[in-house]
């Protein structure tokens, strides 16, 4: 048979086929976890005190170990490599055989909880790279969580007060910070909060693609994103209006808290929660102020022009303001908010504050109201001339309040609340101005605005919202 050419091809490819099949079989037979399980077995035999343990170790079969969690419909195979996680003899072994730190496994037995419920990572994987989910090519949204944020997983079953009491202070402090940085001024959580920022209900479970990762340094995952976003929001999201000033160590605490806001409910028999899972709503005025208003109004005493909002944020605890504004007007502003500006409406239908809470908030704000009543202006006594009012407005007020009253250094006058405000209050404000803020007292001698002028200006201001 001299058919040599094809015979050669047949022979050679047959050999290659055989070699690679064998190599593939070998690779299949020697996965990573086998190495660790062998080390584990050998270490037990070495350190075993009595023979019984040694026999048992000797009989240990080397195979994929997995925890099947029906209730959580998960399968965790981390214990294939981390085989010694429950074994006290392994407390000083090196990773991955090391025993789990602390006594967490006592009250969280792995066969009921598994590992990924707290540590994240890809439970189904049987090799280190894909199990930890590190690196873009693993295409896994929840890589193993750095230990400094691990307490964010506790709140799936426990509530913040209990965690704080038991010494888990990272998450407890993070939750407290969340209530004190005024985050809910812009972010809604459980239906309560402002509507400028994104809802935070399931932010902890959002995939990586949900966050713009362009400017993140280091590994591109949600943990780094949250930490660097708290450090400086505008580095990651250039057009963000987030107003936050946070010390470096606080970024980790807040990141832990934010990562604890997850979707999905743990099955009932896992949960040990007294109150609702998220931070409760405080009841006194000051705590409410800290939770909702502090981010923008800071202590409320100073009014300043904000370069992020491109608008002035009024001083709401300013004595001159409290002197002239009555509780009804302040309540209306808090409830309706100021349409067209970043001031959200806080009534139950929108921001979600109850009637009682708004009253407590206002009583806190108006605590330092000076007792002296301002001298009456009785605007009703004047016949307003809008034409002249417009004239005066153009020269004296447009400089700060804007041609159409949209507001820049001066506050926005077009919104429905100011338009519906009591003219007496407006006239008083123009006449007496606001000390400690840029608003001058136009009624003072020597500046030339007579009471009649003020009445005309006020009547014109009332027509501002109609001007297109």
């Amino acid at each position, binding site marked *: 048979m001299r058919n040599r050419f094809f015979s050669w091809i047949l022979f050679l490819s047959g050999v290659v086929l055989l070699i690679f099949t064998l190599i593939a079989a070998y690779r299949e037979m020697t996965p990573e976890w086998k190495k660790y399980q062998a080390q584990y077995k050998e270490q037990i035999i070495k350190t075993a005190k009595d023979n019984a343990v040694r026999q048992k170790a000797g009989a240990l079969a080397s195979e994929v170990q997995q925890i099947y969690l029906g209730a959580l419909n998960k399968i965790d195979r981390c214990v294939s490599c981390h085989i010694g996680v429950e074994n006290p003899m392994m407390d000083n072994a090196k990773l991955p055989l090391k025993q789990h730190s602390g006594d967490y496994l006592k009250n969280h037995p792995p066969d009921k909880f598994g590992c990924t419920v707290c540590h994240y990572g890809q439970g189904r994987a049987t090799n280190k790279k894909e199990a930890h989910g590190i690196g873009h090519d693993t295409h896994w949204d929840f890589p193993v969580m750095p230990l400094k944020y691990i307490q964010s997983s506790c709140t799936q079953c426990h509530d913040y007060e209990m965690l704080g009491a038991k010494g888990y202070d990272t998450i407890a402090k993070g939750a407290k910070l969340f209530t004190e940085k005024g985050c809910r001024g812009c972010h809604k959580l459980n239906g309560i909060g402002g509507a*400028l920022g994104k809802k935070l209900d399931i932010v902890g479970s959002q995939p990586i693609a949900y966050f713009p990762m362009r400017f993140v340094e280091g590994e591109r995952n949600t943990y780094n994103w949250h930490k660097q976003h708290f450090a400086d929001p505008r580095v990651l999201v250039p057009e963000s209006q987030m107003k936050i000033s946070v010390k470096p160590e606080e970024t980790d605490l807040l990141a832990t808290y934010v990562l604890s806001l997850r979707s999905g409910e743990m099955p009932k028999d896992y949960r040990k929660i007294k109150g609702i899972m998220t931070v409760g709503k405080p009841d006194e005025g000051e705590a409410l102020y800290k939770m909702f208003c502090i981010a923008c109004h800071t202590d409320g005493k100073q009014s300043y022009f904000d370069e992020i909002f491109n608008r002035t944020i009024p001083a709401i605890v300013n004595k001159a303001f409290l002197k002239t504004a009555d509780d009804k007007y302040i309540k209306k502003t808090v409830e309706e908010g100021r349409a*067209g500006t970043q001031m959200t409406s806080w009534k139950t239908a929108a*921001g979600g504050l109850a009637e009682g809470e708004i009253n407590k908030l206002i009583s806190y704000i108006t605590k330092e109201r000076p007792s002296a009543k301002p001298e009456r202006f009785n605007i009703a006594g004047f016949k307003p001339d809008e034409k002249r009012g417009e004239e005066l407005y153009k020269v004296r007020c447009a400089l700060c309040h804007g041609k159409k009253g949209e507001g820049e250094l001066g506050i926005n006058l077009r919104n429905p609340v100011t338009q519906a405000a009591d003219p007496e209050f407006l006239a008083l404000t123009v006449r007496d101005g606001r000390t400690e803020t840029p608003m001058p007292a136009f009624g003072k001698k020597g500046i030339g605005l007579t009471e009649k002028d003020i009445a005309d200006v006020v009547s014109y201001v009332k027509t501002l919202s109609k001007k297109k």
Partner: protein
Amino acid sequence: MSNEAHEKAEISRRDFLGLASLGAAVISSLTVLTGVLRMFKPNVRYEESTKFKIGKAEDFPEGTVKKLDERGLFIFSKDDGLYAISAVCTHLGCIVNQTDWGFQCPCHGSRYNEHGKVIAGPAPRNLDWHEISKTVDGILEVDTAKSVPAGTKFKLYA
């Protein structure tokens, strides 16, 4: 009837029988076929309905834009009212991203201005606008099956 005519009639009668039986067979099998094909169109759709509630008017403060991710919809709230622009690209159905000049589709490069009008790329039509209406209990509702001409806005306080 003459003999030939008779034969012709006879033949045609036998042919007629053949034809009739053939016709019956074909028609019956066709109806079976259409019945079988009809089976492919389910009577109920295993998916969320196209009409859904988006929340209260207060959830959309003036001057803000909200993207309802799970519905592929942008809700704009301006001082003259609320309006909804679909985020589904009219070219091949990807979800567009919002940019400062309008919308950008990541799949084939279609671009729209901030009112959803096509300004570049293969998209054949503008982004759909959907009507926002208020249900009887005061909750805002959108129906993505019905698209309305661009510019229809829901007046908050008409």
